[in-house]
């Protein structure tokens, strides 16, 4: 056991640090860099191009596909170093983290060479189209139809919760190609051109007023068979690969709210008294730190396993579950500290508080996106601890015969 980089990684870290200092702006706060507005999107694209030109894009992808051919540990070093700089990747996390691996795994060689380098440098932006209004946690219950017409497929239906669809050039879409077989066997994955006729993107207004997600409607949208990823009817296996990548990608960047809370405790006085002296604040700080430090250490354990040739386990599900809950609890606790003024949502009046007040309204979504708390618990209980599944009403029957609710 030791904390130090190997000589090779230490040297890589030094190179990264030098390059970042020369090419990026240091950040002064610990707030999450989201995806607000067109200007932020253009800045993010420009940053990815700079990064790709310097050879720092998609470090673990093969060089032939626009990557750097390095290891997960190099990726971690990069993530640790880039955290100190004002850079945005929220627009591209899903594409590179989810769609990229699916294409690496399922696409033809020529498609990989054509599509992946443009994805790595953010010249093309990708989104993932899985969830539907009637298929959330039960995502395999989706109804968007893809029907074969000669060499093409015709798509009709509706997707929901599609992050970044409005920015995207391409998507990876999970469709139902056969409703007469059991639900997991009738699914097929495709790539789709998001700019083509028959694809309509509408933003969703969230409960906090923001618009991070979209609904996407397909009206006779045509997809060539060459855009199919994997076998007809093999979509569920592909989707599972992608969803595990998503949880892995999320776990490294899952906001917990803890660094912001620690900053606040160190700096804020209420009625002249540092809140750091409040016994209740001190108690909560200790509890949340022990969880936060646990997640950091868990991540280090996962990396050790990966470095030794193992695979990431349930760490990603744990990071998602613990981080999302902590984020909401911290936001609520902090606003309660402010008394009646905790209700004010105005960064002009309360710059040090605005983050927490915004998070009170945004954090419920984090507990739902990318697998709800309850789905994470089911994954841990069934896949890690080996507990039996619930009896199910959709087993062994054709998708078209599965009972549905009134609508």
């Amino acid at each position, binding site marked *: 056991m030791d904390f130090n980089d190997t000589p090779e990684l230490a040297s890589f870290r030094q190179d990264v640090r030098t390059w970042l200092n020369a090419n990026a702006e240091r950040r002064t706060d610990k707030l999450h860099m989201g995806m607000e507005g067109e200007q932020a999107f253009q800045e993010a694209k420009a940053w990815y191009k700079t990064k790709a030109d310097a050879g720092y894009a998609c470090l673990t992808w093969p060089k032939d596909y626009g990557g750097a051919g390095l290891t997960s540990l190099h990726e971690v070093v990069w993530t640790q170093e880039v955290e100190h700089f004002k850079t945005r990747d929220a627009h591209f996390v899903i594409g590179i983290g989810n769609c990229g691996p699916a294409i690496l795994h399922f696409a033809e060689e020529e498609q990989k060479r054509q599509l992946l380098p443009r994805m790595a440098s953010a010249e093309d932006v990708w989104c993932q189209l899985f969830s539907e209004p009637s298929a959330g946690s039960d995502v395999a219950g989706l109804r968007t139809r893809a029907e074969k017409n000669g060499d093409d497929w015709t798509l009709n239906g509706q997707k929901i919760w599609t992050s970044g669809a409005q920015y995207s050039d391409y998507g990876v879409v999970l469709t139902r190609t056969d409703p007469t077989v059991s639900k997991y066997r009738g699914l097929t994955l495709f790539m789709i051109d998001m700019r083509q006729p028959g694809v309509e993107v509408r933003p969703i207004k969230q409960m906090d007023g923001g618009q991070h997600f979209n609904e996407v409607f397909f009206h006779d949208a045509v997809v060539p068979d060459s855009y199919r990823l994997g076998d007809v009817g093999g979509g569920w296996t592909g989707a599972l690969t992608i969803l595990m990548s998503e949880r892995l990608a999320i776990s490294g960047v899952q906001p917990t709210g803890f660094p912001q809370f620690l900053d606040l405790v160190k700096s804020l006085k209420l009625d002249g008294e540092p809140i750091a002296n409040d016994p209740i604040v001190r108690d909560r700080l200790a509890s949340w730190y*022990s969880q936060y430090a646990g997640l950091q250490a868990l991540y280090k354990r996962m990396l050790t396993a990966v470095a030794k040739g193992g695979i990431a386990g349930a760490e990603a599900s744990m990071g998602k579950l613990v981080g999302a809950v902590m984020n909401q609890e911290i936001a609520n606790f902090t606003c309660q500290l402010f008394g009646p003024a905790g209700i004010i949502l105005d960064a002009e009046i309360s710059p040090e508080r605005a983050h927490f007040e915004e998070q009170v309204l945004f954090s419920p979504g984090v507990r739902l996106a990318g697998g709800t708390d309850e789905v994470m618990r089911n994954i841990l209980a069934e896949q890690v601890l*080996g507990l039996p599944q619930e009896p199910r009403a959709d087993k062994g029957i054709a998708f078209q015969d599965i009972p549905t609710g009134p609508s």
Partner: protein
Amino acid sequence: MNFEFSEDQLFIRDQARNFLSRECTAETVRAALLSENPCDQALWQKIVDLGWTGIAIPESHGGLGLGYLELCVIAEEMGRSLAPVPFASSVYLATEAIKHFGSDEQRARYLPGLASGEFTGTLATSEGINSAQLHTEVKNDRASGCKLPVPDGDIADFVVFTARDAGGATGLYITDLADASVSREVVPSMDPSRSQARLVFNDCAAQKLGDAGEEALTALLDQTAVLLAFEQIGGCQAALDMGIAYTRDRYAFGRAIASFQAIKHKFADMYVALELARANAYYGACALASDAPDLPLAAATARVSATDAYYLISKENIQAHGGMGFTWEFDCHLYYRRAQLLSTLIGALPAWKEKLTTRLLQAA
């Protein structure tokens, strides 16, 4: 960066697990729980013979000369098996206190006997629930005062204890418990598989332990916090495994109760608490083995995390067993009792949370 034990250390862990699963079953623990003498002497002798009491004692003093990582892997197994022996008090506390802070003469006098099993020792810091002000005094090498509770204080051969000197400064002292002017009696406790005693020093002979003061005690408790965290996660894993095995086989409403999400989600939360505690304990072990500057924060974090996890897992294991979990016959209460013992042994949760917070806010 490498965050795993070495092959050799994992080998020691596997050997310890095999040995204890054979030699320290639930029946062994129950026998100690009901016995007048809660130290299983036969088991203790075998542990001594395996060299575990001397694992971190230098070879020059009769030990194996290994390090803290080896001690951590054994601690995890001691915790898993609920071993009814004075390992924590004698090995983590007394032995380490003498090793770090004793004079050359004290080290030469005690360490070989601790390694060979000739002696066991313990550490006494608490003076009941009003412990903020230390009342035990040592003047002219004579000690007066009362310590309560002292883990394994009824069977230890010597005790390292905290006391004030004539000038009011806190220090660590050592006294042999065979001395007739020390009285000791067992006090009832929540986990009678390990005894707790009241020690009264009636003007008994006591030596200063090197020049150890308050900082020495803090450092000793920090490293003990890491070792106890491994005992705690060992116990957590055993209790979690027990609950899973039971709920998979227990049927109600025509199905295994482990298939209900109410049960599954409970186990998922227990597993998460355990894995966070394990990760913090590993980080603490790494900091301890390398004497890293953030050891004090890492130790407090490991302590808080492991204490929270063992309480959660031991109580929810009872809950998952339903009414059977509340019976004497089922082993659930053995873990629940041990969780209480380990959580109070070197200072309880509020004190360790306060240490964590103070250290965190002092860090850059």
